[in-house]
Each structure stands twice: as C-alpha cells, then as structure tokens.
C-alpha cells in the first residue's frame, strides 16, 4: 500500500525523466565527431607537417601553451619559444599559430563547438590581422 500514491508516482516520474533526459535528448542523433581540417595552403606546402608540439600534446595542452605564450610575450617581453626538441619558434598567435591554421572555421571551431567552449582570443586579437 502506497500512501499518497498519485503524488509519489508523479514525483518518481519527474525524477526518472530528468535522469534519462540526456539519453532522450540524443535519440536519433548521429555521432558527429569533430573533424578538424589540416589542409591549408601553408600546411600543404610544408615539407614536414609538424606543429610546435606533438599532436597529442597540442590536443590536450594547447590552451595552456597559448596562455603561457601570452604571459611571456605581453608580461615578460619574451618572444622566443623553445620546444622539447630544442626548436625555436616566434611567440605570436597571429604570425605563428594562425599562419598555418588559417582556417578557424574548419579547425579551431570544430572542437570548440563540439565540447562547448568559447575562447576569448578575439576580445583582444583582431581577426585577419595575420601579416
């Protein structure tokens, strides 16, 4: 015997719907994994297609690297980055990173949209300022 059965079942119904809402929301949706494009004229022209770090490192740590670069350039006036291989790069979002990755839409945004992050690069940097 359940006392106040109607209210209890209504409450449980709401509980279950909330709990399985992520399952319900995804019904009939195809997995749309991001597929960032590495095909830009600059990258295609490169002999060795290698970023400043390994793909795995860049995938997980690029945001921290960018943050470090910003602090080094703007707060310490240090414009040279030396990677784990000892190679030197100029610290510059627009002239180093975006020189190769000039396709923001097909590169940066694919993953950022997928995982729901909104970087605030363009609050300071101007789009299309690459020299």
């Amino acid at each position, binding site marked *: *015997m*359940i*006392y*106040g*059965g109607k209210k*209890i079942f209504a*409450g*449980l119904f709401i*509980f*279950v719907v909330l*709990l399985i809402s*992520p*399952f319900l*929301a*995804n019904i009939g*949706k195809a*997995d*749309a*994994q*991001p597929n960032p494009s590495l095909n830009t004229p600059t990258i295609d022209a490169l002999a060795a297609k290698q970023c400043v770090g390994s793909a*795995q490192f860049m*995938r*997980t*740590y690029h*945001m*921290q690297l*960018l*943050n470090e670069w910003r602090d080094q350039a703007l707060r310490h006036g240090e414009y040279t980055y030396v990677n784990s291989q000892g190679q030197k790069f100029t610290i510059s979002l627009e002239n180093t990173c975006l020189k190769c990755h000039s396709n923001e839409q097909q590169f940066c945004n694919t*993953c950022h*949209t*997928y*995982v*729901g*992050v*909104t970087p*605030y690069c363009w609050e300071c940097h101007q789009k299309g300022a690459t020299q």
Partner: protein
Amino acid sequence: MKIWSSLVAVLALVLIAWLGTGVAGLYTVFGVGIPYLAFLIFALGFIYRILKWGRSPVPFCIPTTCGQQKSLPWIKQNKIENPSGTAGVVGRMILEILFFRSLFRNLKTEKRGDKLGFGSAKWLWLGGLAFHWSMLIILLRHLRFFLDPVPSLLQGLDGLDSFLQIGLPILYITDIIIVAALLYLLARRLFVAQVRYISLASDYFPLFLLLGIATSGIIMRYFLRVDVVSVKELALGLVTLRPTVPADIGSIFFIHIFLVSSLFAYFPWSKLMHAGGIFLSPTRNMANNSRRVRHINPWNYPVDVHSYAEYEAEFKEKMKKAGVPVETE
C-alpha cells in the same frame, strides 16, 4: 578510526581505478561497464527507497510550525511558516529545498559564565548552501559532455561561472567554492567536539568521496589534462547506447568517473537519500489544517466499542434489581 577508515576507503577507490586502467588496461570496464551499473543502481535504488517510504503511514498531522496559524480573519496568518493549504506548503517546500530555510534557523546554545545563551549560527547554513549550489551548477555544466550540440543556456552558465577569466582552461568559481565548502563541512565535524562525537563513518565517507571527485576533476582540468574531445566521445557513446572507449584518455579521467560511479552506487543506501527524503518529510510537506480537516490515521482499525446506552440496554433488569439507578425510563 571512523575518519581514517573513510579516508582510506576513498583512497582505495582511487587506487583501484588507477590500477584497473593505468596498469591492467580495463578501460571498457571502468569507462562503460561500471558507469552503466552505477547508473542503474542509483536509479532503481532511489525508486526503491521512495516507494519504501511511501509505504509508511503518517499517523498524525505533524507539520512543524513557527508562525501564526490561520485563524480569525483579522489575525494575520504567516502563510509560509504555518501553511494552511497546498499553495503554502509548496511555497514552503520550494524555499526549504532551494534555500534550506529551516537550517537558517539553526541556533547555538552556549554557557556563558553561569548563564545559558542562545545565538544564531549561520555558518552551517552557508556552508551547506554553498556546497549544494556549486554541486548543482557543476552537474549542469557537465551536461556539455552529454549533449550535442551544447545548449546555449548551458554555455551561458559556463560563461557566468568562468567570467573571472583566470588562467586557461578558465577557472570556474564553483570549483573554488565547492572545495572550500566541503573542507568547511569536514572541519566542522573534526573540530567541533559535540559534532565530532556524533559523527559516524557514514558522515565522513561521503565528504571524502565528494572531495575526491572535486579534486580529481580539478586536477584533470587544470593540471594533468586529458583530451576533452575524446571524453565527449566516450560520454556521448554512453548516452546514445553505442559505448566506445577512445584510446588516448589518461587514468585521471577514469579515477574521476570511478569515484563518481561509487557515489552514484552508494547514494540510495546512504544519508545522501535526504535528496529524495526531503519531499517525503511529514513535518514539511503537510498543511497545518488539523482543525478544519480531519486527519485519518491509516493505522486505524475498527475498534469494538460498547457504549453506555448499549450497556444499559443489556443489563437494565439486573441493574434495577440491584437498585442501581438507570437513565432510560
């Protein structure tokens, strides 16, 4: 002892997840099997507990009240502290659930010299509220791993929580608050002698478990990073019932979700069920209307009564013979 055993239990969970994935490579077990199992235990256990409570009768009308009851029209009723109908009860319940209103009345009793003093004690209320709201916001933010596309409302919440724009990945304010609140709630049990005296392992364990979850999440976001795109693939795989385990996710992630799975599986059998229990508390969810509406005790069973009229009818003759005065006649 209660403290150490709880701490060791949580550390053991961390170790199990680390050995299970980092050493034994059981990624599917820890990334798919255990989370699904924990989810099922949580859902079914929660329903079971609620139905079990639903089977307990409420023999009396026992709302706790602390304001003027509904009375004569010229006496002002306190509609929330002493609700007389459904609307008042709902209002009171909402305030209780969202703002812990009854905890706000928490008092501290202290002996000052030879006088007894009562004072307001709001820290527990503040710490509890800070923890629960951060937890809610963190859970909602985590939905970004389970929904594709990420709803703009969730993105807005994310933006608010990270609006200080400290570091990258941007620091969430709720990350600081949840850890601070949990540490406060733990310190209260450790350093207030009376509270420590009544604290059990089942009080410490959830605190350590939640601290473990928050800490592993924070380590994963700010220090030992994992590839969030792969995490989302895994999470979406779970909710579309097409589970996959991407190859390149670090053990810290599996530690995080193993602790979360443990929390989910533990939830229905622990004091954490107050989340469901609050709705079924007779002292909160009843209207104080016992003078207008008769509360029938569901325990009542038919009682054989023998009224005086029946008694007299039965023994009238004998009573008259014995000279006992009778009423009828």
